């Protein structure tokens, strides 16, 4: 994954800063609450939402369980339609393929459609190292690129920026990348969008190479689909002579007809629209219309490892709508950067530790970045049970066990730093398996209750730093029950 995320601190530390950043909290709260209400309204318009959701889930599950067959079918369809298919087992291989394809055109700049897959593999940095400049053309990606920032949301990578900050970035940075921001640029969204239009137009018009991802790939027809709003996608997909699409292998659907499900659920879940402004579909190349050369790079990069996990593989159903981010109370307060990945929020918390493994501090902490409130599962248009996978990954962290890493089965050791917790859990399990021991502990707590401090030392400060402790009662319920014969003798 992108080098910008290496060495991220664990989630709780990264989140601490965000929680204290009042501007960030305000920006995130405003944006996520705006979209939450809109999404609910857009979904309520469709009476068969649950059935569409179930169909989407089943289409994706079926595809994943026959992925080898559909990959081969897709390859044949794309090739028959005039495209060239490349396979990349990891980020490095994908970057090498793309850089080679760009160099073969003789060009030293490319225009890019917003794509999670190319973010994930750090393509822009890899191209830069080869002397190729990649221009992001999605408005939010442009804001991130100009601001030398990192994306913090799947759909709206600059969600952590408000309009005033965006205006400042445009005024300050646009000139170094091309056409400067118009004089007197204000912070109205319409003016900011106009500034982006002017800045990027010259790049679109001269571009010879476009790079994209895809939302869907249809195995039976070889059709790729890009869902977007601004028209930057259409520009990159139709004006250049060469188009290179880097797409995760899980983006396949078997048939043309399957799009009827996702083209209903994706726009309503992501931008809360009945339909997004532009959807482009192309099948190989078309004489006289659009790029003359089309390359599809099929990316694994941890997806087959994820597929090998019976519980975790459901994360591969994800269609990157970002509805789970928008409803997540943890995301709203911690912000996207705390997740240390291009995939933030609840889906990121289950995707990153599977794609990258749980070896790093940040990845081992992500499964805990949730109160398990279940709001993400409820809105997911492909019914990914995110809480189930989070708990499953917590188990992987604390217990270790067999996992697949780069295609090989390996046995993970339990993560360090959980020894005290593990001992406490075992002790609690022992006490709870012996009701007598539990009762003894409860009585001890009750008898010493006057001595209990109001705040706790050490790890207990995590609680008592912000919350008062409950008072321990004079007697536990079970003693009262025994003493009063279940309350029958009327004693209180």
């Amino acid at each position, binding site marked *: 994954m992108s080098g910008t995320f290496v060495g991220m601190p664990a989630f*709780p530390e990264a*989140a*601490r800063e965000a*929680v*204290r950043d009042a501007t960030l909290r305000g920006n995130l709260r405003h944006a996520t609450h705006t979209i939450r209400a809109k999404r609910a309204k857009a979904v309520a318009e469709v009476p068969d939402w649950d059935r569409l959701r179930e169909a989407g889930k089943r289409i994706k599950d079926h595809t994943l369980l026959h992925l080898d067959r559909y990959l081969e079918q897709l390859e044949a369809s794309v090739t028959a339609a005039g495209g060239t298919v490349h396979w990349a087992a990891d980020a490095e291989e994908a970057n090498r393929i793309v850089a080679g394809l760009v160099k073969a055109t003789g060009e030293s700049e490319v225009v890019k459609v917003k794509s999670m897959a190319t973010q994930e593999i750090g393509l822009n940095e890899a191209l830069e190292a080869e002397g190729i400049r990649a221009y992001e053309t999605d408005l939010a990606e442009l804001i991130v690129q100009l601001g030398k920032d990192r994306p913090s949301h799947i759909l709206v990578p600059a969600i952590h920026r408000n309009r005033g900050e965006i205006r400042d970035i445009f005024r300050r940075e646009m000139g170094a990348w091309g056409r400067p921001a118009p004089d007197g640029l204000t912070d109205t969204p319409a003016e900011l969008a106009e500034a982006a239009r002017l800045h990027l137009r010259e790049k679109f018009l001269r571009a010879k190479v476009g790079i994209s991802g895809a939302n869907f790939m249809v195995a039976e027809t070889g059709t790729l689909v890009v869902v977007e709003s601004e028209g930057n996608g259409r520009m990159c997909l139709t004006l250049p002579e060469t188009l290179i699409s880097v797409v995760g292998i899980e983006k396949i659907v078997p048939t043309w007809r399957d799009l009827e499900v996702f083209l209903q659920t994706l726009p309503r879940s992501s931008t809360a629209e009945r339909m997004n402004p532009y959807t482009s579909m192309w099948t190989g190349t078309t004489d006289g219309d659009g790029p003359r050369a089309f390359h599809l790079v099929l990316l694994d990069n941890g997806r087959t490892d994820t597929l090998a996990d*019976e*519980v975790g593989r459901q994360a591969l159903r994800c269609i990157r709508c970002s509805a789970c981010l928008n409803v997540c*109370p*943890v995301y709203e*307060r911690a912000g996207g950067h705390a997740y240390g990945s291009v995939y933030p929020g609840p889906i990121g918390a289950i995707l990153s530790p599977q794609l990258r493994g749980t070896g790093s501090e940040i990845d081992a902490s992500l*499964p*805990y*970045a*949730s*109160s*398990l*409130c*279940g*709001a993400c*599962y*409820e809105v997911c248009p492909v019914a990914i049970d995110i809480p*189930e996978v989070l*708990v499953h*990954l*917590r*188990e*992987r*962290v*604390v*217990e270790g066990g067999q996992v697949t890493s780069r295609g090989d089965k390996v046995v993970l050791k339990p993560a360090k730093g959980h020894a005290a917790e*593990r001992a406490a*859990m*075992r002790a*609690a*399990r022992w*006490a*709870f*398996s012996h*009701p007598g021991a*539990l009762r003894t502990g*409860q009585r001890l707590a009750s008898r010493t209750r006057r001595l209990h401090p109001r705040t706790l030392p050490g*790890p207990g400060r*995590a*609680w008592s730093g*912000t*919350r*008062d*402790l*409950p008072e*321990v*009662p004079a*007697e*536990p*319920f*079970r003693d*009262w*029950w025994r003493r009063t014969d*279940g*309350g029958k003798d009327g004693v*209180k």
Partner: protein
Amino acid sequence: MRVALFLTCVNDTLYPDTGRAVVKLLTRLGVEVDFPMAQTCCGQAHYNTGYRHEAEPLARHFSDVFGEYDAIVTPSGSCGAMVRELYPRMGERARAEGRGDTLAATLAPVVPRTYELTEFLVDVLEVTDVGAYYPHRVTYHPTCHGLRSLRLGERPLRLLRAVEGLELAELPGADECCGFGGTFALKNADVSAAMGADKVRNAESTGAEVLCAADNSCLMHIGGTMARLRTGMRPVHIAEILASTKEDPAV
């Protein structure tokens, strides 16, 4: 019908008033309730923190203790959801690990017989007016497991609306998590506290004296935050409101 009270380890140890309230309420409604002394913990904290294998003996113990009862009533949405939603999953996982159907078969009997208190009242006893009296302005927080796992829906609100003297105030952002989340409250204390503070601010904005919920774990977090922020609001378990009468009012 043999009815058992599954009070939960947290309530048994820290919130005996809630247990007494459930007993009082059910007795008033003509239900004889038993408290099996061998009960301990459903294993939720273990399971949700990643210690599924440590949770298994606790689940088996739960099944041993409660297997003979026709109905198992608990005043905790999250522990109810543990039994109803996650015990079957534990059985499935054991099967997938090549350990056969034993665990699933052991746990199966208690799953459909476990009811969260408000479910038991509305669905099994078919009452919504439990004859309670509680002259206070109250706002209700639907806890996440009650809302999204057990789908309690309107049940708690129907019960509260029927309480004499109770003025129900709608809680803004009611369906947002309070930030407790079990070990989340410790592992991600900053985010948890921020969520708790927002919940408390929303509760305060209703002008209610009392925030009630059907789960003392969440109330421990919300109440601890209220006390620290010196709001003057109190957290009260819904059982204590429903148990309160003119003759024997809750304090």
